């Protein structure tokens, strides 16, 4: 199962980081490729993603659900798409005046293209998590 983890620091107190990352709309806006978000309730949202693979791009609809929220330190969500499920885990720890964030994304591919999608995601996940971290930092720190 492809997995990508990134640890980074955000120059803001842990409560502010928690408020941002536990908001389905705000966290959704930091996911690479998200074009629009539909919020259904506090726990559920739909992300419309455009994923680029080589010279091609694909529109993906991801039904997202919050699985766990332990304020202000831990959150877990799942995103379900046609050919894969993505589970994201966020762990926050105060670090001085800022916050240490560890973000882990696990991808479980399914269907006849699972092996190929696995390989795609293995190649993509590192870039995706880095982009997510950069988006989060930029959004909160600015």
């Amino acid at each position, binding site marked *: 199962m492809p997995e990508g983890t990134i640890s980074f620091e955000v120059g803001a107190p842990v409560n502010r980081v928690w408020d941002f990352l536990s908001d389905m709309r705000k966290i959704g806006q930091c996911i690479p490729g998200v074009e629009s978000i539909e919020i259904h309730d506090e726990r559920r949202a739909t992300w419309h993603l455009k994923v680029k693979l*080589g010279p091609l*791009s694909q529109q993906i609809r991801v039904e997202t659900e919050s699985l766990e929220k332990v304020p202000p330190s831990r959150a877990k969500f799942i995103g379900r798409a046609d050919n894969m499920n993505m589970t994201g885990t966020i762990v926050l720890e105060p670090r001085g005046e800022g916050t240490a964030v560890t973000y882990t994304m696990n991808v479980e591919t399914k269907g006849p293209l699972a*092996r190929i999608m696995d390989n795609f995601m293995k*190649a993509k996940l590192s870039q995706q998590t880095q982009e997510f971290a950069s988006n989060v930092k930029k959004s909160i720190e600015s």
Partner: protein
Amino acid sequence: MVEFDVVIVGGGHNGLVAAGYLAKAGARVVVLEKRPLVGGACVTEEPWPGFRINTFAYVCGLIRPQIVEDLQLSKFGYETILYDPQYFVPFPDGRHLLMWLDERKTLKQIEKFSKTDAKAYPKYVAFWNEVLELVEPTMMAPPVPIAELFGMFTGPDAERLLRQLFLMSAKDFLDEWFESDHLKAALATQAIIGTFNGPYSPGTAYVLGHHNIGTLDGHKEVWGYAKGGMGRIAEAMAKAAQHFGATVRTGVGVRRILVSKGRVTGVETEGGETIGAKVVASGIDAKQTFFKLVPPDVVEPEFLDRVKKIRTRGAALKFNAGLEGLPDYTARPGAPGVHHNGTVDIIPSMDYVEKAYDEAKYGAFSSRPFIETQYQSVLDPTVAPPGKHTMTCFVQYAPTELKGTTWDAFRPKAAEIVLDTIEEYAPNIRKVVKHWQVVTPQDMERELGLTGGNIFQGDITPDQVFSFRPMPGWANYRMPVEGLYLCGSATHPGGGVLGAPGFNAAHVILQDLKGPA
């Protein structure tokens, strides 16, 4: 009594990769190689004292990085030399083109022929980089039905890509990118290598893509030498497989694959030894496997008919030589020069090579062939005696059978044609050649079991790749006898020293050995 879990027939690079992964996962594996050395077509031999020649395959770059890492090949002697420039193409009008690793230097070269093309070239390189990003994940997995693969992507971009890669000829494809015939000819080489098609044949754009997936030392779309020769790759793979517990035996040919009650039970060697196994994985091509090793009565005639129809036409011969010095090219005088570092292509135009193909279509060796040459000793002195050089030429087109003569009879004439052709570009060639050998398509079939002398174990045109390889319905490495698998270049993703077919077959076999979850 079962002695092994898996017997691998043929110690070519894919058989060795499969053995490495199977053994690493704990399977009891034996590789049986008929020749006295491992590697199949990926070997380095010493036909003349001190000259280590890549008899068949001659450059590396296609081997998948994951395999190098997983099997720890560097620990076992795998080392590469990335050459620069990558290509030197001398033209009859006295001009030449050098393609460097540094794109800026290449653009200056292209500007000599067309400023417009120099502007387009970075986009062309970026296009192939993006295609590689798309294709790479499909190589290290069994092929899925091609309709499902295509169904992953829709829209005009996807349509355009499918049209370009699967339907177009290299000529039409390159015409859409560039105007200079010199540049187009230089780039078209990768569309025809080893393929019995000319650049005007539909589908050759795909072959161009297949040969643009090279990755070495962090560079994409590149080629290099295996230090010490191509055989070092196979030797490293064999050592890795042995390290993980596999047995590798050379000088042991397989006479037949044993089948009882519809499933394989092992093999009988040419020496009369019986080796029992739950699984037999054949690294040799589908035709050799089913028409020489598998008992004819255990497979449906319809299946055999489909195997027979796999296109395995020879396209090229090798002219290998030991040199006293280096050829001096009129288009760039001086020897040695940087232009001897990498690949030297004699391909003055696409029309030239199409005409060469025309002759071969009707059973003749091209009177003026396309020739791809390497002088590995220039960057790797370990392969030649001090002050001497090696030369390997991949010469196209050489059909499987010659009309009105035989390859054995024609061999000296073929050598003369190769030397005559090179002499037009490097007049001193005959003075520097000390030893030579011609390896014909027939030699490749006799020595390596490559049917028709097809170096890919089957053409890699769009109708014989992905889920069409080796043939529709049988692309998942499992064959219609329980316990029998193909693991060589005959399977997805095809020929070249990739290792991916062996990787994929090993994972399918492991899954089957483990049984249903």
